[in-house]
């Protein structure tokens, strides 16, 4: 291998996606791919190696998704369903809590701008925080397939939102359709972030216990 090859790194996005879904010891799967990638770089060049790496990563992601349903179908499905229901339960509760506090302190009468902020952005922020909690919950229930279960939940919500938008547009209502979409995207990102936090904590505790 030439000195130049030592500096060639595999595609970061592919690695990141793969490690996000790895259920156990992501370091070893990353090392295996790096070792093979370096070999392909030496034999066939960087462009071929990068294509090979992306192909490996995408095939692997499909298998990791399939593995979650093959190995732990009930816990994965239970995590997705309970995560969905938890969201349905907590989103209205968080809104009610905000409006109860606003009403309790008479914010509408004395600080109208503050009221408007909390009634709009405050509710949206509470949704983002709730989404993160839902992501944590889903990942916790699904155990080692937590990230996969949370991604499936996000896909379900994405599908439902897409269908709702389609119906909304089909009925000729286009006003105010796109305004909440950035917040909706943030909700989904927060869910994935919550799941990633649980996953990283799980890996860290497993690494610590293996060192003992």
């Amino acid at each position, binding site marked *: 291998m030439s000195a130049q090859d030592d500096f060639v790194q595999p595609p970061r996005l592919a690695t990141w996606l*793969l490690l996000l879904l790895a259920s156990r*010891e992501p370091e070893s*799967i990353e090392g*295996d791919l790096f070792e093979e990638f*370096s070999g392909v770089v030496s034999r066939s060049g960087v462009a071929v190696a990068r294509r090979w790496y992306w192909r*490996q990563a995408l*095939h692997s992601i499909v298998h*990791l998704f*399939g*593995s979650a349903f093959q190995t732990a179908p009930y816990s994965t499905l239970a995590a997705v369903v309970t995560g969905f229901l938890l969201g349905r339960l907590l989103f209205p509760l968080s809104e009610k809590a905000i409006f109860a506090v606003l009403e309790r302190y008479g914010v509408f009468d004395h600080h109208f701008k503050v009221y408007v902020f909390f009634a709009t952005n405050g509710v949206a922020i509470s949704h983002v925080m709730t989404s993160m909690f839902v992501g944590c919950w889903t990942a916790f229930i699904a155990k080692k397939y937590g990230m996969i279960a949370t991604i499936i939940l996000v896909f379900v919500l994405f599908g439902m939102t897409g269908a709702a938008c389609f119906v909304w547009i089909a009925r000729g209502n286009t006003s105010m359709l796109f305004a909440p979409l950035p917040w909706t995207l943030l909700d989904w990102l927060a869910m994935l972030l919550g799941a990633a936090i649980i996953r990283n904590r799980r890996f860290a505790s497993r690494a610590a216990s293996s060192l003992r």
Partner: protein
Amino acid sequence: MSGRDYLGEFEHLIVLAVLRLGDDAYGVTVRREIESRTRRDVSIGAVYATLDRLEDKGLIKSQLGDPTPERGGRSKRFFEVTAKGVAALSRTRRALESMTEGLAAIRSYS
């Protein structure tokens, strides 16, 4: 005996590859062994997903090696077939032999 006592097709290949490789059985070598012997395109994710499943069933066990520079400082995870894994392999092999015994169509392919 339940269906869980038998190995699936890819599980069968993985366990055999780990047995063949002995002390050098880790993700890369297992994948290459299966690819070279079966001429089948295998992704590292498929190998790890199956290895994880076999480990959960107690048919193989793994341990981390030392980090090496050619792997960007990351460790290898070495695999070993357990006694339970060998028993499952034997059982699967016997079942396959029993099912193919006396079949003229199978003889013509061998």
